[in-house]
């Protein structure tokens, strides 16, 4: 009789289990001879790569187009923002797209094309401003939480989790109903609601950095906490912040447009704004009048696509 134990293989030598890779062809050039890449040349290489990336170029083209619309709308638009289009002295309202009004006219005869051009600046101011504030605040909080840890980190993490569990748009609605939909209120609200998610990203990046040797070395040199955070860690997470900013701009456009569509976009609804204009005309799509809402909708879609193409190509280049 043989027991199962008899079949057990003798344990091999632990040394053998390590499977040390055998280097059959050692590199001809010793590693140390490789050119040390300094930060400048890495940056230059990244810029070159961006300029070769089609998605970055297309994204930039789209965003610059809209930037021009917001900077020199009077040159690009064909009619004033608020006045109706007149042909031979009579107002043409509810006109489908034609030579007189490329994108048609709305219920009061305003040129939809010109409204789309004038509508660019609202989104192009609010969204980047909110994203910038959110990234700045999130960077400060993330640095502190990721570097010091401890009970402050623990409590703030819980708060962040609570805020992130509710849809941003619901919280934004509640805040803006309280404080009114002024430009400042919109920017601050979106910035405040985006800060938790930025903080979480930055915190994770800071935690990874804080375990590296250069931070330990700075601590041994006796540097202060703020110095290590701002002069040692911050320069190493700028890529994270840049990508986070572009991604947040995309989501901020999403949020700004949605809020405007819900009537929380501006104090004055006659001022051209893509979301506001859609909210006033989308009910007409069913009856066949599609142009006053579809063109601003296309404008929103095009801008977010542009911003996201930029964000994505930056992310790719930085992660290499």
């Amino acid at each position, binding site marked *: 009789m043989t027991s199962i134990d008899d079949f057990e293989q003798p344990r091999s030598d632990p040394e053998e289990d390590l499977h040390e890779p055998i280097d059959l062809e050692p590199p001809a050039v010793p590693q140390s001879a490789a050119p040390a890449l300094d930060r400048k040349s890495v940056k230059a290489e990244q810029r070159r790569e961006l300029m070769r990336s089609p998605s970055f170029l297309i994204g930039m083209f789209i965003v610059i187009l809209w930037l021009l619309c917001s900077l020199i709308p009077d040159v690009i638009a064909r009619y004033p923002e608020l006045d109706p289009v007149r042909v031979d002295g009579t107002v043409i309202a509810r006109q489908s797209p034609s030579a007189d009004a490329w994108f048609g006219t709305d219920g009061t005869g305003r040129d939809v094309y010109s409204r789309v051009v004038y509508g660019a600046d609202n989104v192009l101011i609010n969204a980047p401003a909110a994203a910038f504030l959110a990234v700045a605040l999130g960077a400060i909080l993330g640095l502190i939480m990721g570097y010091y840890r401890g009970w402050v980190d623990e409590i703030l993490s*819980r708060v962040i989790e609570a805020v992130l*569990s509710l*849809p941003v*748009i619901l919280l934004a609605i509640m805040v803006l109903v309280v404080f009114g939909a002024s430009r400042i209120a919109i920017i601050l609200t979106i910035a405040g609601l985006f800060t938790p998610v930025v903080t979480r990203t930055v915190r994770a990046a800071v935690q990874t950095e804080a375990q590296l040797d250069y931070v330990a070395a700075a601590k041994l040199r006796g540097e202060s906490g703020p110095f290590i955070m701002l002069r040692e860690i911050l320069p190493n997470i700028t890529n994270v912040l840049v990508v986070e900013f572009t991604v947040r701009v995309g989501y901020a456009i999403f949020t700004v447009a*949605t809020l405007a569509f819900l009537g929380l976009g501006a104090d004055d609804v006659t001022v051209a704004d893509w979301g506001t204009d859609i909210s006033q005309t989308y009910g007409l*799509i*069913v009856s066949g009048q599609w142009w006053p809402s579809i063109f601003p909708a296309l404008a929103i879609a095009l801008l977010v696509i542009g911003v996201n193409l930029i964000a994505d190509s930056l992310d790719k280049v930085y992660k290499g």
Partner: protein
Amino acid sequence: MARFIARRLLLAVVTLLLILFIVFALTRVFPSDPAKQLAGPFASEERVAALEENLGLDDPLITQFGRLLWGAVTFNFGESFSQPGVQVLDLIRPALWNSAKLVALALVLTLPISILGGIWAAYKRDTAIDRSIVSFGLASASIPDFVSGVFLQFLIGVQLGWLPSISNPPADAGFFTEIRYILLPALAILFVYFGYIARITRAGAITAFDSDYTRTAFMKGLSVPEVIRRHVMKNALQPTVAVTGTQMGYMFGGLVGLELVFNYPGLGRLIFQAATAPDFPLLQAGVVSVAIIFMLATLSADLIIAWMNPRARLS
């Protein structure tokens, strides 16, 4: 496993408490005076005061917060402000059910298509197919839901006339008729989430395709569908499950614009109306419902992941 669930539940309760506090703080700083608004512009001081007492608005804040907590525990939020005499729960229930139907249909469409798209992109990595799936997903995911909704309503609902462009099925509608009516908003949700879920799945699938066990499976002669089904899926789908869980709160409460476009009486639209009314009990109940849905969805996602991956159970 029991400890894992207990810990998760405890954290969920803490988060829920914080949410209740945020909601309470926001609803109590509303500048408008709901009692005055409900009583009408010409009501006497006494009438407003009586209403205030009736609604419990003159109680100390701590009492009011206690009442909200008790309401959240018993899920009884009292009467609506904007529709006196109607229990808040009777307004929430149908909206929740409507949202659930829309979300269910959206998930049935979104999950298989996005998962297949993500795995296909990972399998054909760095080819034109991969790039077009990723780019299309990126573009569609960043467009606001109400914008996609407007496009679909215009193209499919009005121009082609294939589907109803307003989601108001008749009261006696059967199962399939009802699906027809909510298919357009569900397609808009597919549009928003395809890119997101496909990208997450693609990343997970790439890791799985690169792993040794997948290479072994290919080398022992399994066919591609077999390898994907038996080895790639289970490992690639863990991030997908997690992400789907975290998006449930948004699907139930965040699609305000989309529900407005299709005039669909879902939870998001109800909360929006409650916020603008303002109707505190309804608003609080709505937001708490969304938070609870989020908790349950993320908890289920964690449990599914623990079931898929034994290692997750131990940590």
